[in-house]
């Protein structure tokens, strides 16, 4: 590298970690999420029964053996909730990562190049955003046929535009900001400028957005499965387990526990996301103490 490195006032770190740690929301959110991640990793050892085996009596209420009761086919609900982590969590992660990467890059390209490319990309995002996301995902998933893979494809197709929009506007504001121009004037090429001055500044807000979006990815995925357009039975997936409960209202535990699982992890993620947004937003000193 040459000595063209200018001091860059616009560069900021992801967040000041100590600040975020003073926030009880951030701490409780992180604890919840880490617990769920541990459950995901150790699921096979934590589940007392085979999540697919129909070995117990049917529709047993929660008891000492079947902590969360059994479903209409005599499967252990607790084991199925544990096993369900291995569907919802990794799939939602993959979903968020791919749409984050795709959406961000597309938005950066649109913002950096401008003109016709920008126009085309933004019109497409407009049309996709003209649908409420679960509706468009439902339409696509129904067309592709019900399977977990197709649900993921459907959700990918609806979830990239929000990243595109934001990364585009970030890039546009950065492109004309003084420190980027200063870098360009001092001889950085387009690529260097993108990599060194723009990318780090786009990355942190995008990551916060993605972290917060992980919760809605889980909600959307389980929503599609609830509609029968996601994971195919008998696979243990939280949304379709809740849906199993609709035919047995008296056996409340069939739906209650998987739904609670979805709720707790999404709450954890949203607590973290909220705290991170606070730490990033210079205007809000909204710290919960």
């Amino acid at each position, binding site marked *: 590298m040459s000595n063209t490195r200018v001091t860059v006032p616009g560069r900021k770190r992801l967040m000041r970690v100590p600040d975020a740690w003073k926030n009880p929301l951030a701490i409780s959110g992180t604890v919840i999420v880490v617990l769920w991640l541990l459950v995901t990793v150790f699921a096979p050892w934590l589940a007392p029964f085979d999540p697919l085996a129909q070995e117990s009596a049917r529709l047993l209420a929660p008891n000492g053996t079947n902590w969360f009761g059994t479903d209409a086919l005599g499967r252990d609900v607790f084991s199925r909730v544990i096993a369900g982590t291995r569907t919802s969590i990794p799939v939602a992660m993959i979903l968020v990562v791919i749409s984050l990467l795709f959406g961000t890059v597309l938005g950066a390209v649109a913002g950096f190049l401008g003109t016709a490319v920008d126009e085309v990309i933004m019109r497409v995002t407009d049309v996709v955003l003209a649908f409420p996301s679960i*509706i468009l995902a439902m339409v696509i998933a129904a067309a592709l046929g019900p399977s977990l893979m197709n649900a993921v494809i459907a959700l990918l197709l609806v979830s990239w535009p929000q990243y595109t929009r934001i990364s585009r506007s970030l890039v546009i504001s950065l492109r004309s900001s003084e420190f980027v121009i200063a870098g360009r004037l001092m001889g950085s090429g387009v690529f260097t400028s993108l990599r060194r001055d723009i990318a780090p500044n786009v990355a942190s807000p995008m990551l916060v957005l993605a972290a917060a979006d992980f919760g809605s990815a889980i*909600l959307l995925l389980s929503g599609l499965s609830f*509609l029968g357009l996601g994971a195919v039975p008998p696979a243990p997936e939280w949304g379709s387990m809740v849906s199993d409960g609709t035919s047995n209202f008296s056996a409340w535990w069939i*739906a209650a526990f998987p739904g609670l699982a979805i709720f707790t992890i999404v709450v954890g993620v949203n607590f973290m996301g909220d705290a991170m947004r606070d730490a990033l937003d210079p205007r809000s000193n909204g710290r919960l103490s």
Partner: protein
Amino acid sequence: MALTTTDARVPGGAPAAETGAPRPPRRQHPLLRYISLRFGISILLVWGVTVVTFVVTNLVPTDPVNAVLGEQAANNPEIVAALRTEMGLDEPLIVQYWLYLTRLLAFDMGVSAQTRSPVADDLARAFPATLELALFVLLFSTVIGVGLGMLAALRHQTAVDKTIRVLSLFGISLPVFWIAMLIYYVFFYQLHWAPGSGRLDSALVPPPLVTGMYTIDSLVAGQPDLFWNALSHLVLPAVVLTLFTIGTLVRFSRSAILDVVRHDYVQAARAKGLPHRIVVVRYILRGASLPILTMSGLTFGSLLSGAVLTESVFSWHGLGQYAYMAAISLDLQAIMGVGLLIGVVYIFTNFAVDLLCGLIDPRVRVQ
């Protein structure tokens, strides 16, 4: 930037540079310009939505002919061939799209494989039910949501603010289909506090059709008993959808009001010695009205999504239940119809919101 480029496509944007002379200023009212621009954008989006539903329909690996025909007929190659020609499936895609579009303009969205009746008729029946629910919820959740958001913002950084903030985070984390079942189970199945399914008690006859919304139609027909019954049926699904939307509304109105409170004009109003009540209602709330209105519009859209995931639990015969039934039986024509309708409703809701914003905001209204 996006606005100006789309502007160029709006009819009336006459070619300017025909002569070298400066263009005579067209005395078009700014509000009119704004409305026509927004309308043009909405029409473009609707067109885009039809492209999406068309493309998605053509992704289908299964032959749409089979969806229309019974199993026996589908095994008869002559009937299949005749139908293919009739449906235009032998034509190139662009022609097929044209046929699709002309059919749509005549409100022909195909026949539902499940109900065996035209999708357009089904939607016309189902939509008022969902609209009724959505309007009630929109009213409730906007009033409560904006109220709580304002309370939190005005008590910024206090215990009230923090409590409301945590509760709203709980709200946005709820899987709506799950909370629907819990509420159904507790308040109908266990406690019998409110009717749990349908739009009216099964013994009752719906009021004569005016709007399709039972609460309104019963009042129009002068049947107060029917009105109260319909209202009691609304309660539980309305509570669920309110829970579903309120978190976002609270968070959004809180930050919108915090933005406003920072402005000098609020300090200026206080410096004039106006009482707190007037400052809040006249200055702060009016300042936050545009973002809150926009948010309510988006809420309406998300209510339609919420309806898809809740109506089936309450046997509410609206778009949501129709979509759910269509989804689980893979009734593609019906699903496309729902998607198209919700997309269009969503777009025009946003158009209506833009219009209202234009009417409210003097910076748009007057030059």
